[in-house]
């Protein structure tokens, strides 16, 4: 393989042709300043257009999309470039690109998503072929689940892609959001920012909300517009953490009504028992078993007697019977 060095005129390069771009994005200020001061230091890679009636612009960019943008902003007219062999077709050029890029570090999920789109779209490769041949070139395991997870990510809005790239959005949540309607995912992202949800909470809330949407046959914007939900989210006197806890309670009540009713009944009985802070009474998680656990602390015989009397009083008032009937 032989690459040819050349000084290419910017007007000869079709900067709008993004076929080879693995991760869409804009040149940042640092790169802009650097190119303005020093010019393009590392040559970009170009593919010669062949067999077309209107040959200008002559070249398609293969690498260096941000440098190209910075060069145009800096007013450069010619930039250093390496020309890929002219007998290479798009597939060979793409393979070279993926090998070069994959040799540095594994593809990010977003890069993989764009590569999958190019390979399965214009390059017409099968899922099986992409998994078997191209995923290892990207530094990825040939795992069909990864394929399914990554493929739709490029459909996310730029804001969500940025959040994913910045590790502010959980990968699994992003994958699930990518298959939702744009209005749904933007509504969720707004909610996530309002409540300042971490990645684990994002995933948990997305799942709960998706289920509630299907149970209630309502869209996420419709759910969030409900007066009770909206007033909680607009409440000014709660911290994001307090809002998050209360909002989760709303979601759990809607998603698991029978369990939530039992939990509410249990909490009501506990309130009625007026237990001192030194005495704790717990059911099994999710009321999966029929047992209750009691623990208490004491430091004097009088305190010990008082705790036992509290429990006996619960029994005398019928609260123990009511608790055991709950499970």
């Amino acid at each position: 393989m032989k690459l040819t060095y050349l000084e290419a005129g910017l007007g000869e390069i079709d900067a709008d042709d993004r076929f080879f771009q693995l991760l869409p994005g804009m040149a940042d200020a640092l790169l802009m300043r650097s190119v303005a001061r020093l010019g393009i230091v590392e040559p970009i890679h170009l593919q010669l257009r062949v067999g077309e009636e209107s040959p200008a612009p002559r070249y398609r960019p293969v690498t260096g999309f941000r440098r190209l943008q910075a060069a145009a902003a800096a007013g450069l007219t010619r930039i250093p470039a390496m020309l890929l062999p002219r007998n290479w077709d798009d597939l060979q050029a793409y393979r070279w690109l993926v090998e070069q890029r994959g040799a540095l570090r594994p593809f990010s999920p977003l890069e993989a998503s764009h590569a999958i789109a190019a390979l399965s779209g214009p390059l017409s490769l099968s899922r099986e072929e992409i998994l078997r041949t191209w995923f290892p070139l990207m530094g990825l395991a040939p795992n069909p689940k990864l394929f399914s997870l990554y493929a739709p990510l490029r459909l996310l809005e730029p804001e969500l892609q940025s959040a994913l790239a910045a590790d502010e959005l959980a990968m699994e949540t992003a994958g699930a959001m990518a298959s939702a309607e744009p209005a749904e995912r933007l509504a969720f992202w707004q909610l996530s920012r309002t409540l300042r949800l971490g990645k684990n909470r994002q995933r948990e809330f997305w799942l709960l909300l998706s289920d509630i949407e299907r149970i209630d046959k309502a869209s996420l914007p419709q759910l969030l517009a409900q007066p009770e939900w909206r007033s909680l989210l607009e409440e000014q006197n709660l911290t994001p953490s307090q809002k998050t806890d209360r909002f989760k309670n709303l979601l759990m009540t809607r998603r698991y009504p029978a369990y939530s009713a039992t939990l509410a009944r249990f909490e009501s009985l506990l309130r009625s028992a007026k237990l001192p802070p030194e005495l704790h009474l717990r059911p099994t998680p999710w009321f999966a078993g029929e047992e209750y656990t009691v623990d208490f602390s004491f430091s004097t015989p009088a305190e010990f007697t008082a705790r036992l009397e509290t429990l006996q009083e619960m029994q005398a008032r019928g609260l123990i019977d009511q608790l055991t009937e709950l499970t």
Partner: protein
Amino acid sequence: MNASRYQPFLPDRLYIEEAVQNNPWTTRILARLSKAERIPIPDQQALPPAPAGKNILLSRQRGPFLRYCPGTSRHICCLYHNLDIAAGCDLGCSYCILQGYLNVPMTTLYCNLDDMFIELDQVLDSHPDHFYRIGTGELSDSLTFDHFTAWSSDLVNYFRQRRNAIIELKSKNTHIEHFISLPHDRRTVVSWSVNAAAIVASEEPHTPSLAERLEAAAEAQAAGFWIGFHFDPMIRHEGWEEGYHEVVEQIFRRIEPRNIAWISLGALRYPPFLDEIIRDNHPESRIFLGELLPGADHKFRYFKPQRIEMFARMYRWIKAHGQETPVYLCMESDEVWRKAFGWSPGSSAGLKRFLDERVGG
């Protein structure tokens, strides 16, 4: 009867491991699938990762065929033995546990049945006082490939001669043609997984209909086989009470209680990792929208009072047809047994005894 929606599975491609290429059970399959492409491979490591189309791997079982059913911790299990002659299924039911358990990209049929029979002889002969209930329906459907394997005939013939074991062929399918005429000495239970009509339609779309399954069950009854039914998984859905009650009534219209070996009940349950798999593989399904919560064994199950309600009603509907039919719960606690049925076998050993006695163990 309407034309069946079910299409018998016929593979496009057979990957054949070197170790079983000349095996008589392989030869039998090849003779019945003359149109399928044949690809010899040294072993399953040579399989492509995600081949398109309908594929079958003909393989050698390298581990034991016979294993205790894994059951689940802190629950009463029936101490069943699984006979793993196949792994994978073509029926594609939305709730199927196999979606998360198998790590081979296609259904595998273990063709070294000669080794299996030697293993069975060794195990059954060395424990003559132990009664074994054995089934092939754990990692696959017992009959769904039988139209081209005919392995049911080998199993019925083998267990006919055993006094301390019984084989259960557990299926949603109707391929009974290879064993229905064979002598069996009531050492075979032919059982069907059944579900409410709405669930069969929405969650088991590639299976024979309930009516077809019951027709096959009636034929097996007429041939003198023990019959079993498994309401597993029971799924709460709109109209579940009428749906399940109707299936019970249909069963007892066709099958006599004295011929029913057992009826099992199990509510939808699955390990946490399967939740995501079901959602991915069957996004149109609504089964994961139930009140499924982690249990003591960490599996998702319906909220306990809901399970008890389902089991109690089923028990009442079944027992309305007489006390003879044994009904048991699959993977439930002593507490749920007591609250749903009013009694409990108390332990896994107690449940084993209850079921063994029914079929002469």
